[in-house]
Each structure stands twice: as structure tokens, then as C-alpha cells.
């Protein structure tokens, strides 16, 4: 059946048809929908794991048990999963296993722009790279045969423009693969030195075999344009930009198997063209391979290793052509992403900003607290780094710092990798204040359940981690809960915990305003007669608040009646509307 699917949904369909039985992942843009769509198939057991390392090991366990399995993550998630990845390359698999990793060139929703292809090369596992949804579907299916034939986990590299682009997929039926019988094979699956030493040569031999396979495999496509002097080697979304600009007028070597890359067939291709050009986003992986096999391509001498491309870049750089365009002369103000109206993070951030504290931040919606007017954050590194970081910060600067520094971390991020940092704070004794921003969901990636929400990926009730008890068990004696809509309560709690001479955790708890079960209150209104234009309310950075004709104004289409701005108005100018006719 022909369907319009985003790349991630196409991958999920491929997993389904390949007979996959187990999928475990941690959400991360742009990879999240792979697992969300897989969860729609009753035949696949799907779960949100606490982090990518756990997810990858769950998928490994399922493969060991004889079930085809998969996991999905964003590029930075692969850093967390790198530990099992590198040794799974040695153990290989029982049933086929696919690791989907989605890169984010241009950092639409990421903290760095790393290129996952390095991992496939370093871990010595094959990596596929589809160029549209149809290929994402086909490659996901074919990955399992490759995995089983060569006894290796297989990686598939997506990028934002493949993962989140809908294109046409012609889907088929599920192949219900039987569970393979479990066999105890210590020399294959126990990677202690004696056995691992025997496996490394197997890995090297496998790469040789895969390189031979790559010479002539269906994943790679070669198109020779008669009479063309230009030959372009490319892969993934870049292939589409090349075809958009050149159609069939240049020769193209499209790599679908991005690791290992072939040797002989690329040399043959180069021999047929005068000018060999590599078009690839981010790092010169293909280009370096071509150089290693003795070719002299143009690549990063022409194209940037920063950001993503489009057909415009290809046109400009290779054809020196630009499209004509018109625009207004008046500058257009930026529209950066902001915390939503009614966001529970806003209240606690207002308090932290007001108290002029140093705030170590983490990964999630709440990173948006860094932007004006709140400017409440001092650092954001990676998942969990706020909790580990504040300990180091306080150890370096001592007691004075402990009384004016806090860290903030979301509930899901705390489960992912904040807990170990908190153990360190308790064990190695810094009087740090950790604020868990518990909005009862994984927000930034679009509302995924996590171990603190009480529901699983299917929305069914599940065991719920009790954050208060957990923090207590990790060695923190001072644990308290505040409502971030109550500014006075938040300020009191933060003051008291900063003053305490022992580590403490403040759980700022209120569900994300966008959750379906959270009901908005009627929009508030401003009594223009009472408003003195002091702009106190504007310090919140709420998108529903603005100044109109010199007075505060509330946009009724956006306001959810959270009442935080009401607490900042000294003149009682902000109040509930008498009617809710506007909603």
C-alpha cells in the first residue's frame, strides 16, 4: 500500500515487517517517532528505557535470546550507548539487531552537530544511510539479513531531513520470524580478555568481507551519465540535493552502505570521470576514504563541514547560480523558541533569576530559561551534567558558592543520568542544591512517558518511581516539594535549602501545560485603568504578555490562566475575566 510516511515511521514499518519483536529506546529529536510508531504495532514489544545505554543493552539481550530487535536514539544518545556498542561489535548477534541513530546537522534541536559515522567506523560495524522514506523502510528491513549474515549489529544513520520528511512508501506484510532457540555460547558472548582476544581478528575479517560485499551491493547505486565529466559521490539527503540540481546530467555514486565503503568500484567510478566531487554534510568521511584509497576528490575544499545543505548550496558552489528574490527592507525581529504560556518552569526560573543565583542547567525544554528576559542559566552541557557539574563547581569554590548556586534538571533527564551525579553529591559531600523540574513527562521531545510518570509507552499504568523516596535512598536527607506556580513558596524553599549545610533536593512539581489532562483556566485580563506600566509582569517572558499602547496586555488565544503574572502585579491590574467567551 502506498503511504506518505515520515522517515521515522518508515523505519518503524520496516522493523515491523522484518519480524522485530523488541524495541527499546530513549526519546531524542529527531529519532523519537521511530519508537512511537513501532509501539503502534501490537506484535512488537516497545518501551522507553531510562537512557540509551539501557535501551541498547535491552535490544542486545533480546537478540541474544533469539528475537530480532532494535533501538533508536539521537546522535548524542549514541555517546551514552557507545559502551555496549563497541563490545557488541565483538560478540555479534544471535538474531538480527539494528541501532538507529539520527543526526541533526544544523542543530534544529540539539546541543552539538556530531557525525555518527565516526562511531560505525570506530566500532567496526556496518552502517546504512537511507535517502528518503522508501529507503528507510527498505534498509530497516534489509538490515536484519545483513546483521544475521555477518553476525554483527547494524547501524542506520538518519538525519533530520530524512527522519522528519514525509515521502511515499509502498509497504508490505510482516514476516513473523520465529524466536531462534537460545544456545549458551560463552566464547561468543562473554567478553573477558581470553575470549575477546579471539574475537578481535573475527571483527577485522568481517570488515574485509563487508568491504567486498560493498563493492557490488544493492545498498549502493551507481549512475553513469554518458558524456559527463563530473562524478559525484554522495549519500543520504545530499543525494537528493545533487539530483535536484543535476538530474541525470552528471554521474553519481550513491552510497547506501556508508561503512564499510567499497574500494574497487569507487576507483572504477573515479576512472570514468574527470572531476570527482564528494557532497556530504558534516565531516569528510567519504572524502577521507577516497583519499585513503588513493583518489583525489574535491570535497570540503568546496563544501562546509558546518550545518546542513540544500539544493541552493549545490547550485551556488558547483554552478555559481543563485535564484532571484525579493524582500522587505524593514528588519524582521527574530522569533526564538520560548517556554509555553503556563509552563511550570517559568515560575521557578523567575525566582532563581530574581535571586541572581548561578544555575547549572541540563537538557530539555527548560534550557529555554537561558533566553531573555529570564536569562536564568549559566551552563548546559549534556544529559545529567547539571547534577555532576554543580558538585565540581561547589568543590572548586567552597561554602560561599554552595549558598548561591543551584542546578536544575528535568524528571526524565534525572532518570536518564542525573541519579548517579546525585549519589556523588551525597557520597562525596557537597552542600549542593539540586532542583528537579518535575513536569511529569518528557517534554521537549513531544511528551513521552518515563519511569516517574506512572505510565508506559502504550499509556498503560506502570510502576512509578517515587522521586522523594529515591532521592532519600540515594543519601539526600533534605528533600522537599514545591509548586512552581507559587512564587513565594518557591523563593522560601530555595533560600532555606541554600542556607542548609547539607545537600538537598527541591522537586518543583507541576505537570506540563500541554498535557491533555491539564485543563487551562480562562485567560486573564489586564485592567488598563489599574496598570501603571511598571512592566514587572514582562520579566516573566510569557508569550501571552505584551505591552499594547503603553499598558500590559494579555493575548487571550495564548493565556492559560496560570496566574503567575498576577503574583507580580503590585496594583491588582491582572485578574480573571468575568466571562470565557474568548475560549
Amino acid at each position, binding site marked *: 500500500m502506498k503511504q506518505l510516511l515520515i522517515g521515522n515511521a518508515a523505519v518503524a514499518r520496516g522493523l515491523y515487517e522484518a519480524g522485530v519483536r523488541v524495541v527499546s529506546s530513549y526519546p531524542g529529536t529527531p529519532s523519537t517517532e521511530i519508537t512511537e510508531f513501532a509501539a503502534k504495532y501490537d506484535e512488537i514489544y516497545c518501551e522507553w528505557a531510562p537512557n540509551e545505554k539501557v535501551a541498547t543493552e535491552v535490544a542486545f539481550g533480546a537478540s541474544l535470546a533469539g528475537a530480532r530487535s532494535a533501538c533508536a536514539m539521537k546522535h548524542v544518545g549514541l555517546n551514552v550507548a557507545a559502551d555496549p556498542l563497541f563490545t557488541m561489535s565483538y560478540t555479534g548477534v544471535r538474531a538480527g539487531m539494528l541501532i538507529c541513530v539520527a543526526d541533526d546537522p544544523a542543530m534544529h534541536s540539539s546541543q552539538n552537530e556530531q557525525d555518527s559515522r565516526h562511531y560505525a567506523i570506530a566500532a567496526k560495524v556496518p552502517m546504512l544511510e537511507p535517502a528518503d522514506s522508501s529507503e528507510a523502510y527498505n534498509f530497516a528491513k534489509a538490515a536484519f539479513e545483513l546483521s544475521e549474515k555477518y553476525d554483527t549489529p547494524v547501524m542506520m544513520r538518519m538525519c533530520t531531513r530524512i527522519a522528519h520528511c514525509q515521502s511515499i512508501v509502498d509497504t508490505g506484510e510482516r514476516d513473523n520470524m520465529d524466536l531462534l532457540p537460545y544456545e549458551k555460547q560463552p566464547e561468543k558472548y562473554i567478553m573477558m580478555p581470553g575470549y575477546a582476544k579471539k574475537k578481535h581478528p573475527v571483527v577485522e575479517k568481517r570488515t574485509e568481507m563487508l568491504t567486498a560485499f560493498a563493492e557490488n551491493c544493492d545498498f549502493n547505486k551507481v549512475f553513469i551519465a554518458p558524456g559527463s565529466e563530473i562524478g559525484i559521490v554522495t549519500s543520504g539527503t545530499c543525494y537528493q540535493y545533487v539530483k535536484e540540481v543535476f538530474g541525470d546530467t552528471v554521474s553519481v555514486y550513491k552510497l547506501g552502505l556508508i561503512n564499510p565503503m567499497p574500494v574497487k568500484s569507487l576507483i572504477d567510478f573515479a576512472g570514468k570521470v574527470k572531476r570527482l566531487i564528494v557532497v556530504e554534510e558534516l565531516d569528510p568521511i567519504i572524502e577521507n576514504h577516497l583519499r585513503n584509497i588513493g583518489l583525489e576528490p574535491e570535497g570540503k575544499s568546496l563544501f562546509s563541514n558546518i550545518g546542513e545543505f540544500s539544493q541552493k548550496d549545490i547550485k551556488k558552489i558547483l554552478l555559481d547560480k543563485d535564484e532571484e528574490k525579493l524582500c522587505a527592507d524593514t528588519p524582521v*525581529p527574530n522569533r526564538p523558541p520560548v517556554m509555553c504560556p503556563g509552563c511550570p518552569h517559568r515560575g521557578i526560573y523567575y525566582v532563581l533569576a530574581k535571586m541572581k543565583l548561578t544555575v547549572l542547567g541540563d537538557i530539555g525544554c527548560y534550557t529555554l530559561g537561558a533566553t531573555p528576559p529570564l536569562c536564568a542559566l549559566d551552563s548546559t552541557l549534556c544529559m545529567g551534567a547539571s547534577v555532576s557539574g554543580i558538585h565540581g563547581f561547589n568543590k572548586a569554590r567552597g561554602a560561599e558558592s554552595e549558598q548561591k548556586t543551584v542546578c536544575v534538571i528535568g524528571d526524565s533527564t534525572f532518570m536518564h543520568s542525573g541519579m548517579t551525579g546525585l549519589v556523588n553529591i551525597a557520597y562525596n559531600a557537597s552542600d549542593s542544591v539540586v532542583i528537579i523540574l518535575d513536569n511529569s513527562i518528557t517534554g521537549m521531545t513531544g511528551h513521552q512517558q518515563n519511569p516517574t510518570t506512572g505510565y508506559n509507552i502504550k499509556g498503560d499504568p506502570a510502576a512509578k518511581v517515587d522521586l522523594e523516596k529515591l532521592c532519600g535512598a540515594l543519601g539526600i536527607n533534605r528533600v522537599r516539594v514545591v509548586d512552581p506556580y507559587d512564587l513565594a513558596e518557591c523563593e522560601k524553599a530555595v533560600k532555606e535549602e541554600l542556607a542548609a549545610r547539607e545537600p538537598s533536593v527541591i522537586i518543583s512539581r507541576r505537570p506540563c501545560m500541554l498535557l491533555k489532562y491539564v485543563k487551562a483556566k480562562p485567560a486573564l485580563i489586564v485592567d488598563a485603568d489599574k496598570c501603571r506600566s511598571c512592566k514587572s509582569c*514582562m520579566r516573566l517572558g510569557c508569550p501571552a504578555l505584551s505591552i499594547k499602547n503603553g499598558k500590559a496586555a494579555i493575548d487571550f488565544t495564548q493565556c492559560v490562566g496560570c496566574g503567575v503574572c498576577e503574583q507580580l502585579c503590585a496594583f491588582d491590574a491582572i485578574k480573571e475575566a468575568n466571562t470565557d467567551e474568548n475560549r
Partner: protein
Amino acid sequence: MKTVNIMIVGVGGQGSLLASNLLGHLLLKEGYDVKVSEVHGMSQRGGSVVTYVRYGDKVYSPLVSEGEADYIISFEKLEAARHAPMLKLGGQIVVNTQQIDPMPVITGAATYPDGILEELKAKGIKVDAIDALSLAKKAGSVKAVNIVLMGRLSNYFPFNEEVWIKAIEETVAPKFAQMNKTAFLLGRSN
């Protein structure tokens, strides 16, 4: 046929994804090759959002670049101005006259430009402005701005009304179908 390039732009949370899904669904049913490219995540949070819809006999790139868009559907005035350089010479903008202040305007770091649509028109850009918010309210929900705009856009395409209505029925949740159909027809006729 040549590939037709459409951009749907707006502010995160305005429902541009539903509009692009509707369009993609309709074009698939009409037998075209289609690509719909969207960005999830950070850009949804009240930021500027862009969706690309491309259709034709064979579509390669999922993106529309500067000077290539045949149509820009903007859910907000400022966003129309921001993305105007994406428009092909002779291309058409369909824009909702709603104003949503971005954070730099709210904080006073920037000002919302007055008469921005008039300025675009003065440059020779074809601008079709519509108060989609009022029409959406009339249809029953301020959230139907997206479908009102699809109604307005439909006037520029050769597909008949039934095709659009069917696509709406197949794309939106059944309980909102009637309201969205009303919104579509209000956009199409006003």
C-alpha cells in the same frame, strides 16, 4: 510537470503540521510524487516554524530554497515577511493578518514593524491577506486558523471542493471534522 513548491510558515503551536499533513494527503491521493518536510522539537516552542511541501512527477529534495517557493502560506504577518525571500519571482503569499509578538518584541529589544504587508506589496510581491482568526472563531474554534488558510489557498489550486473536503475528513479527528469543514469553506469563500 515542474515541481510545485509550497511553504507553510507560522509560530510553533499554530497547527501548521496539520495543514501540511492535509496538503500532503490530498496530493498523494491526486497521484503526485510528494515530499513534506517538517522540523519537530525545539522549533515548536513558540518559535518560527517552517514546513515544506513539494509535489510533481518526481520530487528529489525535501527542502525549498531561497527564490524557489511558488506559494507561501503564513499563519502570521511577521513570518510572511521573514520568509518572503524564499518566494519565487511572481510567487503568491497567502497570509493571516494575525500579529503574534515574538519574545524580542515582548522584552522591548525589538519592535514589531508596522505595515509590513504593505511594504511587501510595494515591492511587487503578490500578497493575499485574510483575517483567518476571526473566521476560525466564526467556525467554532480559534485553533481552526490552519484550515481557514487552507481554504483560502485552495482557490489557487485546480482541485475541486470535494477533493479538499474529503482530504479534511481523512486527516482530522472525526469530532472536529464538521467544524474544520466550516472553517475551510469560510476561508475559501471570504
